[in-house]
Protein backbone atom coordinates (compact mmCIF):
# COMPACT_ATOMS: atom_id res chain seq x y z
CA UNK A 1 0.00 0.00 0.00
CA UNK A 2 1.57 3.26 -1.01
CA UNK A 3 -0.93 5.63 -2.42
CA UNK A 4 -0.11 8.86 -0.75
CA UNK A 5 -1.56 10.67 2.22
CA UNK A 6 -2.06 8.63 5.34
CA UNK A 7 -0.89 5.57 3.47
CA UNK A 8 2.44 7.06 2.47
CA UNK A 9 5.46 4.89 3.07
CA UNK A 10 6.78 6.88 6.03
CA UNK A 11 3.52 6.99 7.96
CA UNK A 12 2.33 4.38 10.43
CA UNK A 13 1.38 1.33 8.36
CA UNK A 14 -2.41 1.30 8.56
CA UNK A 15 -4.45 0.34 5.52
CA UNK A 16 -7.75 1.85 6.54
CA UNK A 17 -8.26 5.37 5.17
CA UNK A 18 -9.62 6.27 8.58
CA UNK A 19 -10.41 4.58 11.86
CA UNK A 20 -13.33 6.67 12.97
CA UNK A 21 -16.07 4.68 14.62
CA UNK A 22 -18.63 7.44 14.98
CA UNK A 23 -21.17 8.41 12.32
CA UNK A 24 -18.81 10.91 10.71
CA UNK A 25 -20.67 10.71 7.38
CA UNK A 26 -23.87 12.04 8.87
CA UNK A 27 -22.95 15.72 8.91
CA UNK A 28 -21.61 15.94 5.34
CA UNK A 29 -24.52 13.83 4.08
CA UNK A 30 -27.09 16.01 5.80
CA UNK A 31 -25.36 19.13 4.52
CA UNK A 32 -25.29 17.83 0.99
CA UNK A 33 -28.93 16.80 1.17
CA UNK A 34 -29.99 20.18 2.53
CA UNK A 35 -28.06 22.14 -0.05
CA UNK A 36 -29.26 19.88 -2.84
CA UNK A 37 -32.88 20.33 -1.81
CA UNK A 38 -32.47 24.08 -1.93
CA UNK A 39 -30.75 23.97 -5.30
CA UNK A 40 -33.55 21.88 -6.76
CA UNK A 41 -36.25 24.06 -5.30
CA UNK A 42 -34.61 27.36 -6.22
CA UNK A 43 -33.82 26.22 -9.76
CA UNK A 44 -37.43 25.29 -10.33
CA UNK A 45 -38.63 28.57 -8.90
CA UNK A 46 -36.05 30.75 -10.60
CA UNK A 47 -36.83 29.39 -14.05
CA UNK A 48 -40.57 29.11 -13.49
CA UNK A 49 -41.05 32.80 -14.22
CA UNK A 50 -44.51 32.59 -12.69
CA UNK A 51 -46.40 32.98 -9.42
CA UNK A 52 -43.83 35.30 -7.90
CA UNK A 53 -46.07 38.25 -7.21
CA UNK A 54 -49.18 38.42 -5.12
CA UNK A 55 -49.84 41.99 -4.05
CA UNK A 56 -48.39 43.22 -1.82
CA UNK A 57 -45.84 40.42 -1.70
CA UNK A 58 -42.99 39.88 -4.13
CA UNK A 59 -40.92 36.76 -3.93
CA UNK A 60 -37.38 37.47 -2.75
CA UNK A 61 -36.18 35.43 -5.74
CA UNK A 62 -37.60 38.04 -8.10
CA UNK A 63 -36.70 41.22 -6.30
CA UNK A 64 -35.59 43.59 -7.64
CA UNK A 65 -37.16 42.71 -10.96
CA UNK A 66 -35.09 44.25 -13.71
CA UNK A 67 -36.61 43.27 -17.07
CA UNK A 68 -39.58 44.34 -19.10
CA UNK A 69 -41.23 40.95 -18.75
CA UNK A 70 -41.61 41.45 -15.00
CA UNK A 71 -45.04 41.52 -13.51
CA UNK A 72 -46.18 44.99 -12.58
CA UNK A 73 -45.71 45.66 -8.91
CA UNK A 74 -46.99 48.99 -7.78
CA UNK A 75 -44.33 50.81 -5.80
CA UNK A 76 -42.27 47.65 -5.99
CA UNK A 77 -38.68 47.30 -6.95
CA UNK A 78 -39.07 46.66 -10.63
CA UNK A 79 -37.07 48.72 -13.01
CA UNK A 80 -36.77 47.81 -16.66
CA UNK A 81 -33.02 48.19 -16.81
CA UNK A 82 -32.67 45.20 -19.06
CA UNK A 83 -35.48 46.21 -21.36
CA UNK A 84 -37.37 43.84 -23.59
CA UNK A 85 -34.57 41.71 -25.00
CA UNK A 86 -34.41 39.69 -21.80
CA UNK A 87 -36.61 36.78 -22.55
CA UNK A 88 -36.14 34.30 -19.76
CA UNK A 89 -37.01 34.54 -16.10
CA UNK A 90 -35.98 37.89 -14.60
CA UNK A 91 -34.99 36.02 -11.41
CA UNK A 92 -31.79 34.95 -13.11
CA UNK A 93 -30.65 38.58 -13.38
CA UNK A 94 -30.73 39.15 -9.69
CA UNK A 95 -30.18 35.72 -8.17
CA UNK A 96 -26.52 35.64 -9.22
CA UNK A 97 -25.75 38.14 -6.46
CA UNK A 98 -27.10 36.26 -3.45
CA UNK A 99 -25.93 33.07 -5.11
CA UNK A 100 -22.40 34.44 -5.50
CA UNK A 101 -22.47 35.72 -1.94
CA UNK A 102 -23.42 32.34 -0.60
CA UNK A 103 -21.14 30.40 -2.93
CA UNK A 104 -18.11 32.32 -1.78
CA UNK A 105 -19.22 32.49 1.85
CA UNK A 106 -16.67 31.04 4.25
CA UNK A 107 -19.31 28.83 5.83
CA UNK A 108 -20.85 27.50 2.62
CA UNK A 109 -17.39 26.82 1.26
CA UNK A 110 -16.73 24.53 4.19
CA UNK A 111 -20.13 22.95 3.73
CA UNK A 112 -19.83 22.11 0.06
CA UNK A 113 -16.11 21.28 0.11
CA UNK A 114 -16.99 18.67 2.70
CA UNK A 115 -20.44 17.66 1.54
CA UNK A 116 -20.04 17.63 -2.25
CA UNK A 117 -16.34 17.53 -2.93
CA UNK A 118 -15.28 15.34 0.02
CA UNK A 119 -12.26 17.49 0.54
CA UNK A 120 -12.20 16.29 3.23
CA UNK A 121 -15.42 14.35 3.85
CA UNK A 122 -14.87 14.69 7.60
CA UNK A 123 -11.94 15.37 9.89
CA UNK A 124 -9.23 12.72 9.76
CA UNK A 125 -11.09 10.85 7.02
CA UNK A 126 -8.91 10.50 3.95
CA UNK A 127 -10.12 12.42 0.94
CA UNK A 128 -10.40 10.63 -2.41
CA UNK A 129 -8.46 13.15 -4.48
CA UNK A 130 -4.97 12.52 -5.75
CA UNK A 131 -3.99 16.16 -5.98
CA UNK A 132 -5.03 19.14 -3.98
CA UNK A 133 -4.22 22.80 -4.49
CA UNK A 134 -7.00 24.34 -2.45
CA UNK A 135 -7.81 27.91 -3.28
CA UNK A 136 -4.43 28.74 -4.76
CA UNK A 137 -5.40 28.73 -8.44
CA UNK A 138 -8.26 29.37 -10.86
CA UNK A 139 -11.15 28.92 -10.41
CA UNK A 140 -11.10 28.57 -6.64
CA UNK A 141 -8.78 31.51 -6.19
CA UNK A 142 -11.88 33.54 -7.10
CA UNK A 143 -13.24 32.76 -3.65
CA UNK A 144 -11.19 35.77 -2.61
CA UNK A 145 -13.75 38.11 -4.19
CA UNK A 146 -16.23 37.27 -1.45
CA UNK A 147 -16.23 40.82 -0.13
CA UNK A 148 -17.59 42.22 -3.43
CA UNK A 149 -20.50 39.85 -3.24
CA UNK A 150 -20.89 41.05 0.32
CA UNK A 151 -21.26 44.63 -0.93
CA UNK A 152 -23.84 43.41 -3.46
CA UNK A 153 -25.59 41.40 -0.77
CA UNK A 154 -25.98 44.58 1.28
CA UNK A 155 -27.84 46.15 -1.65
CA UNK A 156 -30.00 43.10 -2.13
CA UNK A 157 -30.82 43.00 1.56
CA UNK A 158 -31.73 46.68 1.32
CA UNK A 159 -34.18 45.97 -1.46
CA UNK A 160 -35.68 43.03 0.38
CA UNK A 161 -36.11 45.34 3.35
CA UNK A 162 -38.00 47.68 1.07
CA UNK A 163 -40.16 44.75 -0.01
CA UNK A 164 -40.86 44.01 3.61
CA UNK A 165 -41.97 47.58 4.16
CA UNK A 166 -44.27 47.25 1.14
CA UNK A 167 -45.79 44.18 2.72
CA UNK A 168 -47.45 46.46 5.25
CA UNK A 169 -49.98 47.23 2.55
CA UNK A 170 -53.03 45.25 1.62
CA UNK A 171 -53.78 43.78 -1.78
CA UNK A 172 -55.16 47.13 -2.88
CA UNK A 173 -51.93 48.92 -1.95
CA UNK A 174 -53.45 50.65 1.05
CA UNK A 175 -50.93 51.21 3.84
CA UNK A 176 -51.20 50.14 7.44
CA UNK A 177 -52.19 46.52 7.03
CA UNK A 178 -50.61 43.23 7.94
CA UNK A 179 -51.10 39.67 6.93
CA UNK A 180 -49.40 36.38 7.70
CA UNK A 181 -47.14 37.10 4.75
CA UNK A 182 -45.91 40.26 6.44
CA UNK A 183 -44.70 38.15 9.35
CA UNK A 184 -43.03 35.71 6.98
CA UNK A 185 -41.29 38.62 5.28
CA UNK A 186 -40.28 40.16 8.57
CA UNK A 187 -38.75 36.92 9.80
CA UNK A 188 -36.98 36.48 6.51
CA UNK A 189 -35.51 39.96 6.35
CA UNK A 190 -34.23 39.78 9.92
CA UNK A 191 -32.46 36.53 9.12
CA UNK A 192 -31.15 37.84 5.80
CA UNK A 193 -29.65 40.86 7.51
CA UNK A 194 -28.25 38.79 10.36
CA UNK A 195 -26.62 36.42 7.91
CA UNK A 196 -25.27 39.24 5.75
CA UNK A 197 -23.88 41.26 8.65
CA UNK A 198 -22.36 38.19 10.30
CA UNK A 199 -20.21 37.61 7.21
CA UNK A 200 -16.48 37.18 7.80
CA UNK A 201 -15.67 39.83 5.20
CA UNK A 202 -17.97 42.24 6.98
CA UNK A 203 -16.21 41.48 10.25
CA UNK A 204 -12.93 42.29 8.56
CA UNK A 205 -14.14 45.48 6.98
CA UNK A 206 -15.81 46.98 10.03
CA UNK A 207 -12.80 46.47 12.27
CA UNK A 208 -10.98 43.20 11.84
CA UNK A 209 -8.42 44.74 9.54
CA UNK A 210 -7.26 47.19 12.22
CA UNK A 211 -4.08 46.63 14.14
CA UNK A 212 -5.07 48.87 17.04
CA UNK A 213 -8.67 48.66 18.27
CA UNK A 214 -7.72 51.07 21.05
CA UNK A 215 -7.44 53.88 18.52
CA UNK A 216 -10.84 53.16 16.92
CA UNK A 217 -13.33 52.63 19.75
CA UNK A 218 -16.43 52.80 17.56
CA UNK A 219 -15.16 50.34 15.00
CA UNK A 220 -14.03 48.12 17.86
CA UNK A 221 -17.60 48.04 19.18
CA UNK A 222 -18.88 47.26 15.71
CA UNK A 223 -16.30 44.51 15.31
CA UNK A 224 -17.36 43.00 18.62
CA UNK A 225 -21.01 43.08 17.61
CA UNK A 226 -20.33 41.50 14.23
CA UNK A 227 -18.08 38.98 15.95
CA UNK A 228 -20.94 37.85 18.17
CA UNK A 229 -23.16 37.31 15.14
CA UNK A 230 -20.28 35.76 13.24
CA UNK A 231 -20.00 33.03 15.84
CA UNK A 232 -23.46 31.93 14.64
CA UNK A 233 -22.72 32.34 10.96
CA UNK A 234 -23.47 28.72 10.17
CA UNK A 235 -26.79 28.80 11.97
CA UNK A 236 -27.74 32.05 10.27
CA UNK A 237 -26.67 30.71 6.90
CA UNK A 238 -29.10 27.82 7.19
CA UNK A 239 -31.86 29.79 8.86
CA UNK A 240 -31.80 32.48 6.18
CA UNK A 241 -31.60 29.89 3.42
CA UNK A 242 -34.72 28.21 4.74
CA UNK A 243 -36.51 31.49 5.40
CA UNK A 244 -35.88 32.87 1.93
CA UNK A 245 -37.19 29.66 0.40
CA UNK A 246 -40.21 29.79 2.70
CA UNK A 247 -40.89 33.41 1.83
CA UNK A 248 -40.78 32.52 -1.84
CA UNK A 249 -42.94 29.47 -1.29
CA UNK A 250 -45.45 31.56 0.61
CA UNK A 251 -45.70 33.96 -2.27
CA UNK A 252 -46.04 31.03 -4.65
CA UNK A 253 -48.89 29.56 -2.62
CA UNK A 254 -50.72 32.86 -2.51
CA UNK A 255 -49.99 33.81 -6.14
CA UNK A 256 -51.02 30.43 -7.48
CA UNK A 257 -54.23 30.62 -5.51
CA UNK A 258 -53.59 27.53 -3.37
CA UNK A 259 -53.83 29.56 -0.24
CA UNK A 260 -55.27 32.89 0.85
CA UNK A 261 -53.08 35.20 2.82
CA UNK A 262 -54.76 35.57 6.22
CA UNK A 263 -55.03 39.29 6.93
CA UNK A 264 -54.73 40.56 10.50
CA UNK A 265 -55.87 44.12 9.88
Amino acid at each position, binding site marked *: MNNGGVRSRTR*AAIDAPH*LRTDRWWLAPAATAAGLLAFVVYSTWRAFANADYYAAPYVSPFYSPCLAENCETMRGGPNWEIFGSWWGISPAILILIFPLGFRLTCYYYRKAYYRGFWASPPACAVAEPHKKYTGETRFPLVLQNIHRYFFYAAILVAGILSYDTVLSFRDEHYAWGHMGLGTLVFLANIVLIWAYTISCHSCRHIVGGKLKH*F*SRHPVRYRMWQFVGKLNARHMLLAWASLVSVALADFYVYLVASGVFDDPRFF
Partner: protein
Amino acid sequence: MSGYTAHFKVWRGDGQGGGLEDFKVEVNDGEVVLDIIHRLQATQVPDLAVRWNCKAGKCGSCSAEINGRPRLMCMTRMSVYDRDETITVTPLRAFPVVRDLVTDVGFNYRKAREVPSFVPPAGVGPGEYRMFQEDVDRPQEFRKCIECFLCQDTCHVVRDHEENKTAFAGPRFLMRVAELDMHPLDAAAETGLDRKKTAQDEHGLGYCNITKCCTEVCPEGIKITDNALIPLKERAVDRKYDPLVWLGSKIRRRSS
Protein backbone atom coordinates in the same frame (compact mmCIF):
# COMPACT_ATOMS: atom_id res chain seq x y z
CA MET B 1 -18.57 2.43 39.56
CA SER B 2 -15.72 0.01 39.63
CA GLY B 3 -12.93 -1.28 37.50
CA TYR B 4 -13.45 -3.30 34.34
CA THR B 5 -11.40 -4.82 31.58
CA ALA B 6 -11.26 -2.93 28.33
CA HIS B 7 -10.26 -4.08 24.90
CA PHE B 8 -7.58 -1.93 23.30
CA LYS B 9 -5.96 -2.00 19.91
CA VAL B 10 -2.67 -0.13 19.90
CA TRP B 11 -0.53 0.41 16.84
CA ARG B 12 2.96 -0.94 17.33
CA GLY B 13 5.81 -0.79 14.89
CA ASP B 14 8.16 1.65 13.29
CA GLY B 15 9.06 3.12 9.89
CA GLN B 16 9.56 -0.38 8.50
CA GLY B 17 6.04 -1.51 9.27
CA GLY B 18 3.76 -2.56 12.05
CA GLY B 19 0.15 -3.04 12.92
CA LEU B 20 -2.58 -2.92 15.51
CA GLU B 21 -2.04 -5.20 18.48
CA ASP B 22 -4.80 -6.35 20.81
CA PHE B 23 -4.64 -5.87 24.55
CA LYS B 24 -6.94 -6.58 27.44
CA VAL B 25 -6.31 -4.06 30.15
CA GLU B 26 -7.80 -2.98 33.45
CA VAL B 27 -9.58 0.36 33.63
CA ASN B 28 -10.45 2.15 36.87
CA ASP B 29 -12.82 4.90 37.73
CA GLY B 30 -11.92 8.33 36.39
CA GLU B 31 -9.04 7.25 34.17
CA VAL B 32 -7.99 8.73 30.87
CA VAL B 33 -6.60 6.94 27.82
CA LEU B 34 -3.05 7.89 28.76
CA ASP B 35 -3.46 6.06 32.08
CA ILE B 36 -4.33 2.92 30.19
CA ILE B 37 -1.31 3.28 27.92
CA HIS B 38 0.84 3.71 31.03
CA ARG B 39 -0.70 0.60 32.54
CA LEU B 40 0.16 -1.33 29.41
CA GLN B 41 3.74 -0.09 29.73
CA ALA B 42 4.02 -1.01 33.37
CA THR B 43 2.41 -4.43 33.10
CA GLN B 44 2.53 -5.79 29.56
CA VAL B 45 4.79 -3.97 27.13
CA PRO B 46 7.50 -1.98 28.94
CA ASP B 47 8.99 -0.74 25.70
CA LEU B 48 5.74 0.71 24.30
CA ALA B 49 6.88 4.10 23.01
CA VAL B 50 4.70 7.08 23.81
CA ARG B 51 5.29 10.79 24.36
CA TRP B 52 3.81 12.53 27.35
CA ASN B 53 4.78 15.18 29.84
CA CYS B 54 2.37 17.06 32.02
CA LYS B 55 -0.69 14.81 31.92
CA ALA B 56 -2.85 17.87 32.45
CA GLY B 57 -3.50 19.10 28.92
CA LYS B 58 -0.96 21.89 29.15
CA CYS B 59 2.09 20.73 27.25
CA GLY B 60 0.61 19.11 24.15
CA SER B 61 2.91 16.08 24.06
CA CYS B 62 0.57 13.08 24.15
CA SER B 63 -1.15 13.68 20.82
CA ALA B 64 -2.44 10.52 19.18
CA GLU B 65 -5.47 9.28 17.29
CA ILE B 66 -8.11 7.54 19.35
CA ASN B 67 -10.78 5.71 17.40
CA GLY B 68 -9.54 7.62 14.39
CA ARG B 69 -9.83 11.07 15.92
CA PRO B 70 -6.82 13.24 16.75
CA ARG B 71 -6.83 13.89 20.49
CA LEU B 72 -4.68 14.40 23.56
CA MET B 73 -4.56 11.08 25.39
CA CYS B 74 -4.36 12.82 28.76
CA MET B 75 -7.61 14.68 28.15
CA THR B 76 -9.63 11.77 26.81
CA ARG B 77 -11.61 10.21 29.60
CA MET B 78 -12.35 6.52 29.38
CA SER B 79 -15.91 7.24 30.45
CA VAL B 80 -16.71 8.71 27.03
CA TYR B 81 -16.45 5.19 25.58
CA ASP B 82 -18.74 2.25 26.16
CA ARG B 83 -17.26 -0.49 28.28
CA ASP B 84 -17.56 -3.07 25.54
CA GLU B 85 -16.20 -0.77 22.87
CA THR B 86 -12.81 -1.56 21.37
CA ILE B 87 -10.58 1.48 21.68
CA THR B 88 -8.06 1.93 18.92
CA VAL B 89 -5.01 4.08 19.55
CA THR B 90 -2.66 4.96 16.72
CA PRO B 91 0.11 7.48 16.21
CA LEU B 92 -0.64 10.71 14.36
CA ARG B 93 -1.13 9.71 10.76
CA ALA B 94 0.05 12.89 9.08
CA PHE B 95 3.66 12.54 10.20
CA PRO B 96 6.32 9.89 9.69
CA VAL B 97 6.18 7.28 12.43
CA VAL B 98 9.21 6.77 14.65
CA ARG B 99 8.04 3.99 16.89
CA ASP B 100 4.69 2.86 18.28
CA LEU B 101 2.76 6.01 19.21
CA VAL B 102 5.68 8.35 18.61
CA THR B 103 5.90 10.27 15.36
CA ASP B 104 8.50 12.55 13.85
CA VAL B 105 6.97 16.00 14.26
CA GLY B 106 10.00 17.76 12.77
CA PHE B 107 7.78 19.18 10.01
CA ASN B 108 6.30 21.54 12.56
CA TYR B 109 9.64 22.75 13.84
CA ARG B 110 10.83 23.40 10.30
CA LYS B 111 7.71 25.40 9.57
CA ALA B 112 8.14 27.37 12.81
CA ARG B 113 11.52 28.53 11.54
CA GLU B 114 10.07 29.74 8.28
CA VAL B 115 7.83 32.31 9.95
CA PRO B 116 9.80 35.52 10.45
CA SER B 117 9.91 36.38 14.15
CA PHE B 118 8.46 39.32 16.00
CA VAL B 119 10.12 42.55 14.91
CA PRO B 120 10.55 44.89 17.88
CA PRO B 121 9.60 48.50 17.17
CA ALA B 122 12.56 50.81 16.70
CA GLY B 123 13.16 53.33 19.42
CA VAL B 124 11.00 51.63 22.05
CA GLY B 125 13.13 50.28 24.86
CA PRO B 126 12.38 47.47 27.31
CA GLY B 127 9.88 48.72 29.85
CA GLU B 128 8.50 51.29 27.43
CA TYR B 129 6.08 48.99 25.65
CA ARG B 130 2.53 50.23 25.95
CA MET B 131 -0.21 47.97 24.67
CA PHE B 132 -3.90 47.90 25.45
CA GLN B 133 -5.84 44.86 26.48
CA GLU B 134 -8.29 45.16 23.61
CA ASP B 135 -5.33 45.13 21.22
CA VAL B 136 -3.63 42.11 22.74
CA ASP B 137 -6.80 40.04 23.16
CA ARG B 138 -6.65 38.67 19.62
CA PRO B 139 -3.01 37.53 19.54
CA GLN B 140 -3.34 36.28 23.12
CA GLU B 141 -5.97 33.80 22.02
CA PHE B 142 -3.51 32.34 19.54
CA ARG B 143 -0.76 32.27 22.12
CA LYS B 144 -2.85 29.82 24.13
CA CYS B 145 -1.61 27.27 21.61
CA ILE B 146 0.18 24.39 23.33
CA GLU B 147 1.69 23.12 20.07
CA CYS B 148 0.18 19.66 20.31
CA PHE B 149 0.10 19.73 16.48
CA LEU B 150 -3.30 18.06 16.34
CA CYS B 151 -4.41 20.76 13.92
CA GLN B 152 -1.39 20.07 11.74
CA ASP B 153 -2.20 16.38 11.91
CA THR B 154 -5.85 16.64 11.01
CA CYS B 155 -5.44 19.20 8.23
CA HIS B 156 -6.17 17.32 5.02
CA VAL B 157 -3.89 19.64 3.03
CA VAL B 158 -0.86 17.84 4.38
CA ARG B 159 -2.43 14.76 5.92
CA ASP B 160 -3.71 13.56 2.58
CA HIS B 161 -1.10 15.19 0.36
CA GLU B 162 2.48 14.73 1.47
CA GLU B 163 3.69 16.87 -1.42
CA ASN B 164 1.98 19.96 0.00
CA LYS B 165 4.23 19.93 3.03
CA THR B 166 6.80 22.13 1.33
CA ALA B 167 4.36 24.86 0.36
CA PHE B 168 1.95 24.83 3.28
CA ALA B 169 2.78 25.94 6.81
CA GLY B 170 -0.31 24.38 8.37
CA PRO B 171 -2.93 25.94 10.64
CA ARG B 172 -0.65 26.31 13.63
CA PHE B 173 1.91 28.40 11.79
CA LEU B 174 -0.55 30.36 9.69
CA MET B 175 -2.08 31.23 13.03
CA ARG B 176 1.39 32.35 14.14
CA VAL B 177 1.54 34.67 11.13
CA ALA B 178 -1.89 36.03 12.06
CA GLU B 179 -0.75 36.46 15.66
CA LEU B 180 2.25 38.52 14.61
CA ASP B 181 0.25 40.53 12.12
CA MET B 182 -2.21 41.39 14.89
CA HIS B 183 0.52 42.10 17.48
CA PRO B 184 0.04 45.78 18.29
CA LEU B 185 3.76 46.55 18.27
CA ASP B 186 5.13 44.25 15.60
CA ALA B 187 7.21 46.40 13.28
CA ALA B 188 7.64 43.95 10.41
CA ALA B 189 5.96 46.33 7.98
CA GLU B 190 8.50 49.04 8.80
CA THR B 191 11.29 46.71 7.76
CA GLY B 192 9.58 45.88 4.49
CA LEU B 193 8.06 42.58 5.51
CA ASP B 194 4.39 42.36 4.60
CA ARG B 195 3.02 39.46 6.64
CA LYS B 196 -0.37 39.68 4.91
CA LYS B 197 1.23 39.10 1.56
CA THR B 198 3.74 36.48 2.64
CA ALA B 199 0.97 34.52 4.34
CA GLN B 200 -0.35 33.83 0.85
CA ASP B 201 2.90 33.82 -1.10
CA GLU B 202 5.22 31.94 1.22
CA HIS B 203 3.21 30.09 3.82
CA GLY B 204 0.53 28.64 1.58
CA LEU B 205 -2.58 30.29 3.02
CA GLY B 206 -4.36 29.65 -0.28
CA TYR B 207 -4.20 25.90 0.33
CA CYS B 208 -6.52 26.27 3.29
CA ASN B 209 -10.11 25.60 2.25
CA ILE B 210 -11.44 26.52 5.68
CA THR B 211 -13.04 23.16 6.35
CA LYS B 212 -12.43 23.82 10.05
CA CYS B 213 -10.99 20.51 11.19
CA CYS B 214 -8.18 22.41 12.91
CA THR B 215 -10.72 24.23 15.03
CA GLU B 216 -12.59 21.01 15.75
CA VAL B 217 -9.56 19.23 17.19
CA CYS B 218 -8.00 22.14 19.08
CA PRO B 219 -7.81 21.07 22.75
CA GLU B 220 -7.41 24.70 23.78
CA GLY B 221 -10.62 25.67 22.02
CA ILE B 222 -8.88 28.28 19.90
CA LYS B 223 -11.11 29.39 17.03
CA ILE B 224 -8.29 28.87 14.56
CA THR B 225 -10.41 29.15 11.43
CA ASP B 226 -12.73 31.99 12.35
CA ASN B 227 -10.28 34.13 14.29
CA ALA B 228 -6.94 33.47 12.63
CA LEU B 229 -7.17 31.88 9.18
CA ILE B 230 -10.18 33.68 7.75
CA PRO B 231 -9.06 37.10 9.06
CA LEU B 232 -5.66 36.34 7.54
CA LYS B 233 -7.30 35.44 4.24
CA GLU B 234 -9.17 38.73 4.34
CA ARG B 235 -5.92 40.56 5.05
CA ALA B 236 -4.32 38.80 2.09
CA VAL B 237 -7.28 39.93 -0.04
CA ASP B 238 -6.54 43.51 1.06
CA ARG B 239 -3.08 43.14 -0.37
CA LYS B 240 -3.56 40.96 -3.37
CA TYR B 241 -7.14 40.85 -4.60
CA ASP B 242 -8.71 44.17 -3.77
CA PRO B 243 -8.35 46.67 -6.64
CA LEU B 244 -9.76 49.50 -4.55
CA VAL B 245 -7.21 48.98 -1.81
CA TRP B 246 -4.53 48.52 -4.42
CA LEU B 247 -5.50 51.75 -6.15
CA GLY B 248 -5.77 53.58 -2.84
CA SER B 249 -2.32 52.53 -1.78
CA LYS B 250 -0.92 53.63 -5.13
CA ILE B 251 -2.44 57.06 -4.77
CA ARG B 252 -1.36 57.40 -1.17
CA ARG B 253 2.16 56.40 -2.04
CA ARG B 254 2.28 58.99 -4.77
CA SER B 255 0.91 61.79 -2.62
CA SER B 256 3.16 61.08 0.36
